[in-house]
């Protein structure tokens, strides 16, 4: 009887301790700062390689479209959402029409990886929710407009292919991107940095038409 009583008390003691521990964990989290990012008022900082909406680019020096209508992206796209028609011209070719069905796109970045002229890139945004699916059937004008509207991701075709090549001797002025290091044991601050934060240095040419706003791709290799 004594041992039964003892084990009953022991079990009750264990129950009380366990309850206390569980409620202690919950209480500790009550005092932590919530990790919610109040999107869309506050936007999260997207990493450099974010794979967002696709867009076409202009050559910053000449102002011409980068796309030469080679159709490599059309061939490599797994769900076959890209359709291109080539327009032959004297010095170089262009794309006559370029349609991309964003509603079926997988965002796998293979088209970006294959593009020889860095014409098609992905943007650091995914804000294209719409009530009409036809708005997601992007034609060439829309794709170029998107290229000027959002921040481009770091990844362009040449950069991705260079990344896979054997490492060359260290290049000059490859400043590492400013990824915020956070103190241990507390959730990272996902809110967008204050307006005065310095933009990371870059050593690649601006890949957009001269009228574009600031926000160039940043260097991202070690």
């Amino acid at each position, binding site marked *: 009887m004594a041992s039964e009583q003892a084990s009953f008390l022991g*079990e009750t003691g*264990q*129950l009380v*301790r*366990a*309850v206390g*521990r*569980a409620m*202690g*964990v*919950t209480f*500790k*989290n009550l005092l932590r700062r919530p*990790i919610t990012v109040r999107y869309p008022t506050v936007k999260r900082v997207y*990493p*450099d*390689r*974010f*794979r967002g909406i696709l867009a076409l680019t202009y050559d910053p020096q000449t102002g011409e479209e980068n796309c030469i209508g080679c159709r*490599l992206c059309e061939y*490599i*796209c*797994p769900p076959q959402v890209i359709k291109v028609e080539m327009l032959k011209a004297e010095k170089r070719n262009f794309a006559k029409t370029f349609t991309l069905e964003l509603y079926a796109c*997988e*965002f*796998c*970045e*293979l088209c970006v*990886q*294959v593009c020889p002229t860095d014409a098609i890139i*992905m943007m650091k945004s995914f804000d294209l929710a719409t009530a009409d699916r036809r708005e997601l059937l992007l034609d060439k004008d829309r794709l170029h407009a998107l290229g000027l509207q959002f921040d481009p*991701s770091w*990844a362009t075709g040449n950069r*991705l*292919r*260079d*990344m*896979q*090549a*054997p*490492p060359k001797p260290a290049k000059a002025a490859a400043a*590492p*991107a*400013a*990824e915020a*290091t*956070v*103190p*241990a*044991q*507390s*959730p*990272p601050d996902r809110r967008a940095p204050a307006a005065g934060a310095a933009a990371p240095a870059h050593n690649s040419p601006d890949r957009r038409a001269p009228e574009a706003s600031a926000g160039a791709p940043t*260097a*991202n*290799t*070690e």
Partner: protein
Amino acid sequence: MPETLEIGYGGSERLTMNMGPQHPSAHGVFRAILTLEGETVVGVDAVIGYLHRCHEKLAETLTYVQYPSIASKTDYVAAMTAELAYVSAVELVGKIEVPRRAQWLRVLAAELQRVASHCLWLGTWCMDMGGALGGGATVFLYAIREREDVLDLFEALTGARLLYGFHQPGGTRYDLPAGWTEQCRTTLDRVEQRIGEYEAMLEDNPFFLVRTQGVGVISRELAQEIGVSGPLLRGSGIDHDLRKAAPYSSYEHFQFRVPVETAGDCFARYRVRMVEFRESIRIARQVLDGLPEGPISSRPGVKSVGQVRVPKGEGYARVEGARGEVGCYLVADGGPKPYRLKWRGASFSNLSVLPHILPGVKVADVVAIMGSVDPVFGEVDR
């Protein structure tokens, strides 16, 4: 579903209840037609196939370069595993070399993916047992908070949070960006500390123990016969982990422990996965400490998007995913596309154990058992 109500000799009624494809705890689209006597399950008829998307036929129409990002959609919770299985099969049959740095990066990705997948498992399992408006949801949100940190790492590495397209035949597509190793170490430290918190919340909690100990016992013989793998196997006393038994992608270089428990119940599987958490973090740290320099792909640059022509042959490559053995059997015919691809989904084989362990348990235990089996229906139905 027509309802059948039979009155037996003892006056016991049997009720056929449908835990339908739309259910908060079905872990996906899964239909279990339970035959109940009161609160006890006496029979189960599992219906799958609601998520069949013809992956194997689709693979025959896509080249070896195009398919890895589709492969991640089989086990969408642990996408790196499925991609690795596919590219390993291609490299096996095509005799394509993988550079050392790529192998180590693959290990890193696989182990981080295991951490993220187990976070989701813990969260959804506790939510099934505790309700969406209750203590389960608290553990769910904490676990998702940790998973989001790991997904942030993947997002900085590849640009995507869930379906990566990180692997390609010959190596990986992306290399580590600047500052990533520090971010990774910080995240690993934080996840390790938080796992300690979850264990404190659950481990000696009598409510949790009474829900999981002795529930859903898979005996050692049953586990061996049925063909389960992963934590289900190791929770029933069989020490079999592909990372040690048939090492792939440089796993033989790493020191880690494979947890084995003998009880075979839900609690044993829980312990196996909690130890796997910590061991995965240990492996990830070892990779970060000793990552070799070199190319990340043996088909770099323009070749990475060029066609891979795999000569005629067939082979089976398997990896140890978070749920068990994920395998890819590839039959190649010399062209740029496979002739036939067969996926061995870990969850598909794990689910086959249900008709053997469910009869005799209460309805409430069905969800606990389903959660500890941890199926992902992309893998089951492909």
